[in-house]
């Protein structure tokens, strides 16, 4: 909504205020008030009508159901969940599952998309054509079909659980997913996390100090190597100090399925790969256009100044390319997150899938849909705010 904040230099009419509709300021205010009034009236009518209809048909309303026992099972969850938990907790499981697939998906899609985008500009004919083919094919097939394809690929091409492939000792691959051993629970993991946190804080301070020193003395400091050393070194010291435990929780076939270790389920695999492959095609185009947007002269100018090619990319080309890349990239991240709701079709328990089950058991469709919409709104705004912040930060500072 554009608001009339621009200061018009027009002096106000002498002898008081006139309310003529021919005055542009009055007219602008009048129409805005009118529009807001109509929106409120329509909204009030629809809400009133809805509540009226709901009560006429004795359909329950309100969010009280969230505290009731869910009593349905969920296939995979990041937090402990049991059918005796509440609908509220079940929904939280769904939100976390959505976040899990979205965050991992965004990272992988960015990496893959950047690679393909750069490959499409490659001077190597074969690589460039392969990348173009990928983009053109993947972009034009609906994502739901791609999900079915990846899901079918796992369930049809992998062996049944009893004949699971065992490529590395302890690792099993079957229709039920990829089972991988994990280190058994040990207090040292907590200590290592703490050490990592300290390392991160240390890196932040180190960077500040290095920057200040370079500005003062002109001496560059090898900040990359030092940071890496800190981030790996501190947790490693904690691990050794904690007795370097090597016990593993190895999956083994027990009854119907593998027990122990961690599992990458076919549902998660299919939704993740599907979203990454699909979104990467769009990101590739975004990256390609961003790079093409930077005039080749910029690179030549940097070279003429004797700046090496790594720094040319980092200090000259990227800041200008990112300005073009980041806004459309944001919308791709949002798309990926929203497309994760297709998970319902292949059985990955994302927030839509769980909210749908809930609203079906309770019959409270409006509340359920409101919760789905509210959650996506929060996630989308979150991504948007972060990306806008990032965009401002990397934007070319013009002097």
């Amino acid at each position, binding site marked *: 909504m554009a608001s009339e904040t621009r200061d018009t230099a027009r002096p106000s009419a002498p002898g008081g205020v006139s309310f003529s509709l021919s005055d542009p300021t009055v007219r602008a205010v009048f129409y805005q008030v009118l529009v807001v009034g109509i929106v409120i009236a329509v909204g009030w009518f629809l809400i009133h009508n*809805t509540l009226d*209809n709901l009560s006429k048909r004795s359909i*329950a309303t309100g969010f009280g159901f969230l505290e009731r026992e869910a009593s*349905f*099972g969920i*296939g995979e969850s990041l937090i402990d969940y049991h059918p005796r938990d509440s609908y509220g907790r079940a929904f939280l499981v769904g939100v976390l599952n959505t976040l899990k697939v979205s965050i991992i998906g965004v990272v992988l899609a960015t990496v893959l998309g950047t690679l393909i985008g750069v490959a499409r500009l490659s001077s190597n004919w074969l690589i460039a054509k392969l990348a173009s083919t990928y983009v053109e094919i993947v972009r034009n097939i609906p994502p739901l079909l791609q999900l079915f394809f990846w899901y079918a690929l796992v369930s049809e091409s992998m062996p049944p659980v009893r004949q699971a492939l065992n490529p590395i000792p302890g690792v099993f691959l079957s*229709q039920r997913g990829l089972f991988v051993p994990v280190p058994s629970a040990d207090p040292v993991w907590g200590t290592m996390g703490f050490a990592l946190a300290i390392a991160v804080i240390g890196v932040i301070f180190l960077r500040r100090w290095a920057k200040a020193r370079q500005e003062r003395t002109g001496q560059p400091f090898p900040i990359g190597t030092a940071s890496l050393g800190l981030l790996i070194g501190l947790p490693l010291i904690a691990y050794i100090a904690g007795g370097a435990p090597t016990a593993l929780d190895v999956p083994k076939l027990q009854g119907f399925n593998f027990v122990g270790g961690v599992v990458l389920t076919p549902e998660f695999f299919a939704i993740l790969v599907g979203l990454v492959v699909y979104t990467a095609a769009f990101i590739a185009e975004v990256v390609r256009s961003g790079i093409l947007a930077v005039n080749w002269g910029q690179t030549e100018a940097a070279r003429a100044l004797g700046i090496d090619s790594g720094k040319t990319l980092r200090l000259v080309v990227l800041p200008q390319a990112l300005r073009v890349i980041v806004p459309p990239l944001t919308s791709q991240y949002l798309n990926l997150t929203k497309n994760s709701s297709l998970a319902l079709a292949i059985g990955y328990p994302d927030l839509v899938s769980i909210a749908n*089950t809930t609203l079906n*058991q309770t019959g409270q469709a409006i509340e359920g849909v409101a919760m789905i919409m509210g959650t996506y709104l929060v996630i989308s705004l979150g991504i948007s705010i972060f990306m806008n912040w990032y965009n401002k930060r990397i934007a070319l500072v013009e002097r």
Partner: protein
Amino acid sequence: MKSGILAAAAAAVVFGAVTGAQAGPTLDAVKGRGFVQCGVNAGLPGFGNPDSSGNWTGLDVDYCRAVAVALFNDPNKVKFTPLSAQQRFPAIQSGEVDLLSRNTTVTLTRDTSVGLNFAPVTYYDGQGFMVNKKLGVKSAKELNGATVCVQAGTTTELNLADYFRSNNMSYNPVVIESNDEVNAAYFAGRCDVLTTDASGLAGTRAGVAPVPDDHIILPEIISKEPLAPAVRHGDDQWFDVVKWTVYATIQAEEMGITSKNVDEFVNSKNPEIQRILGTSPGMGKALGLDEKWAYNVIKTMGNYGEIFERNVGLKTPLKLERGLNALWTNGGLQYAMPIR
């Protein structure tokens, strides 16, 4: 809580789920429109399934047609809307369909907070488990740790959790929205167990399984699943029409009236038969229908037994016994209230 309701209602506005539905007398609306809008299963052999030429068939479908016959004496004056388990309640709540005849289990919650009224039960069912014979499982009690394929948004999902909880067993659910995809996942081997109503398992085994004999339905029936047509709360007249249409088919079987011999009964001296077939008037008027409504239904669709045998009985691929669905006079549960 009020603000919560408002927020939810605002969502409804955007979603358009509830607004614009007519709450008035459905019977008049249906008569004026000239056809019944009926929500059915999108693909469950024996209950609601389009055949190879696109005609809807099945027991649930036949009850939609029976209501159309009672109203218009034409089994084709129905518009079928295939609904997933998740879509069915919003569809009936919002008025998109007048009648939900889609193997829906009668439960207290659905009768109350979902806002439905259930007509008489057209199929007494119970939830069962199907497994591949290769697993060597003979009883559902041996399923500890199994992976179970189940359709999203059904009572099945709840019974499944309850059953494993009460038997101290664990399971891994794979919950998928579309029935076809659930079946595909099971037959591909993603799950050890497929669970749904026993009739549905029979339908799937007969109609979908690559080799039906590879799969067995375990003996345990873990729940009561009375499946019934449903209408919206708050329209008694329409509810009555659906209810007594179902009763008429059951009553006809009880009296030995079939689609073949119904004309022989028109001259019957039995006052009960005269009332049903409209020879002595009154019943049709009470329902707001033609006096021949039940005669038409029986003549066109047959009695309950005929509908059952035609769609799911022993001569169909589903091969279901009458079992609980036999008449009360034969030791089953089907019992029509007196039409008088």
